[in-house]
């Protein structure tokens, strides 16, 4: 058995896992489809709740990759064999032996143009949260005509919790991200009025609620409970919004200079066929068990981490990557123990777990052939 592990996806989850596996003494090959590591996070400015610079996170995780082979600009096109003797073939034509594989291929941002009523791609001043973040990074938040906006509306749940686009799940990070960018706008343009249009505020993590409260108390960010029905463009390029303030039960109109669509996460299932992974009805990868095997896929030796298995915040993705590293280490350790012919009875619960001891797995528990 070789001791190489292939990690697919060089975002925060993949990097965190790779770094930890290296620390455990494994050889690791990290495959990234883009030319730079860092996934979606490398594009961000500062992250909630503490305004850590995203670059700091990327640099920290990159610093843990010493001795790891990184293949950039490559995707995985084929996976042959079974654990612990996989063969991974890349789009660059390389064949890599792997004892185990970690899929950490992350998410794709929701395509805001699918919500046509919000005017993304139609009206110049309807932008996504990703574009706003880039503007904040440049300290150049401005309308299409180059002026600093005086009034901004932020729309929660764009592509999330919405049966109309078949995304019934909550993307989890958009609410807190809205609060974060609202504060940043206020810091850069103090007299700008900000209205956040929400269905429910879901700021659930440590320090998130405090951030929400700060945005109201210290920065005067306004929150209106109502979902945007549609936006229309006025002749001056500003946007007329129709919504209901459901707490006062009043249909209202709001004119803003800029509309920011807080886009949710969409599952990235590019490897579903190649790695023989199951996909849930939310179109994220299915784990072997939602509660206690959430880094295992149903395929023995192939593990999952990060937003590949559903929306997660950055900190959660990093933790999930390291958790996957521990699972992989334990999985490979079991083969080593077997080769040493020692008493294996203590690891039976784990063996039966990965071999299918739960309701989602079709493979009956079998003794390991190795």
């Amino acid at each position, binding site marked *: 058995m070789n001791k190489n592990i292939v990690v697919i996806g060089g975002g925060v989850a993949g990097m965190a896992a790779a770094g930890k596996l290296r620390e455990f003494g494994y050889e690791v090959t990290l495959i990234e489809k883009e030319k730079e590591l860092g996934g979606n996070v490398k594009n961000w400015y500062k992250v909630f709740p503490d305004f850590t610079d995203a670059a700091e996170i990327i640099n920290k995780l990159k610093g843990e990759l010493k001795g790891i082979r990184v293949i950039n600009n490559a995707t995985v096109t084929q996976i042959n064999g079974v654990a612990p003797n996989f063969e991974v073939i890349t789009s660059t034509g390389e064949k890599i032996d792997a004892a185990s594989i970690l899929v950490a291929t992350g998410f794709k941002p929701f395509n805001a143009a699918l919500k046509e009523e919000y005017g993304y791609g139609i009206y110049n001043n309807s932008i996504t949260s990703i574009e706003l973040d880039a503007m904040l990074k440049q300290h150049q938040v401005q309308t299409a005509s180059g002026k600093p906006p005086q009034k901004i509306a932020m729309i929660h749940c764009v592509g999330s919790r919405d049966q109309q686009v078949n995304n019934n799940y909550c993307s989890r990070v958009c609410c807190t991200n809205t609060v974060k960018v609202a504060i940043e706008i206020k810091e850069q343009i103090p007299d700008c009025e900000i209205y956040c249009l929400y269905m429910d505020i879901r700021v659930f993590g440590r320090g998130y609620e405090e951030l929400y409260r700060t945005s109201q108390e210290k920065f005067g960010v306004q929150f209106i409970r109502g*979902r945007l029905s549609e936006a229309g463009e006025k002749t001056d390029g500003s946007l007329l919004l129709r919504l209901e303030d459901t707490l006062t039960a009043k249909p209202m109109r709001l004119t803003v200079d800029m509309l920011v669509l807080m886009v949710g996460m969409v599952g990235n299932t590019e490897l579903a066929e190649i790695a023989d992974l199951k996909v849930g009805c939310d179109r994220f990868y299915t784990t072997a068990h939602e509660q206690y095997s959430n880094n295992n896929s149903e395929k023995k030796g192939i593990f999952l981490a990060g937003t590949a298995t559903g929306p997660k915040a950055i900190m959660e993705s990093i933790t999930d990557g390291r958790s996957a590293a521990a699972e992989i280490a334990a999985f490979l350790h079991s083969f080593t123990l077997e080769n040493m012919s020692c008493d294996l009875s203590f690891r039976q619960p784990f063996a039966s777990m990965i071999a299918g001891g739960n309701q989602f797995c079709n493979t009956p528990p079998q003794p390991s052939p190795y």
Partner: protein
Amino acid sequence: MGKLFDELKKDILYQHGMNACLNCGVCTAVCPAAEFNDYSPREVMNTVQSECDEDIKELLKSDKIWYCGQCFSCKTRCPRGNSAASVILALRRLSIRHGYFAESEKGRQQLFAKRVFGQNMLDRGYTLLAKNISPAHFPELGENWEYYYEHMEEMRQWWDVPMDLENSPGSHRQIPEQDLDEIRAIYQKTGAIALMEAVEKAMEKKLGSKAEVEKYWQTWLETGDSRNYELKGENKS
């Protein structure tokens, strides 16, 4: 929970139109009727969702369920896939079955709907005939309509869609009696006839007599506005 709600729940339009509502207000924000009237589809959904018979009864007796224009804009926007317009239809049927519609001014207009659209369907297989649209009731249609209204028969000859010709194209064709019988059978079977009868019955009860219902009908025919009929005594509302 109560009898009214249980009855509502049996309506297929309710079953299709109502998943749990999260009160986001997207329906009210997009609703053309809510813009001009004291009406909010979100509030209707919320009342129904409460399953409270008292509140539902109040709703069935109010003008609110009659403002919806059945454009279904709410359905296209709802993040939960609800259709307030469908729930409204189910509420209207319930209101008619129990006679509650007669308690509101907008509800009482069901009499005209029944006697015009309903009767047209049974007699002609069409909801609205050109003859129904009198210039006195629709002054906004202007002189052209007035001319057409007076020369309808002649003009339709020019266009080769004559009045009352069997199976000719156009809304004024005569549908063969045999086919009309089929329509009537469908209306009977689906309960539409029963609803029409319920309208007449509840109006009679509300206004006191058949003669008063005719007076109400005549007021509308003559003035185009049922508010010109004054409710008497205890019936005032």
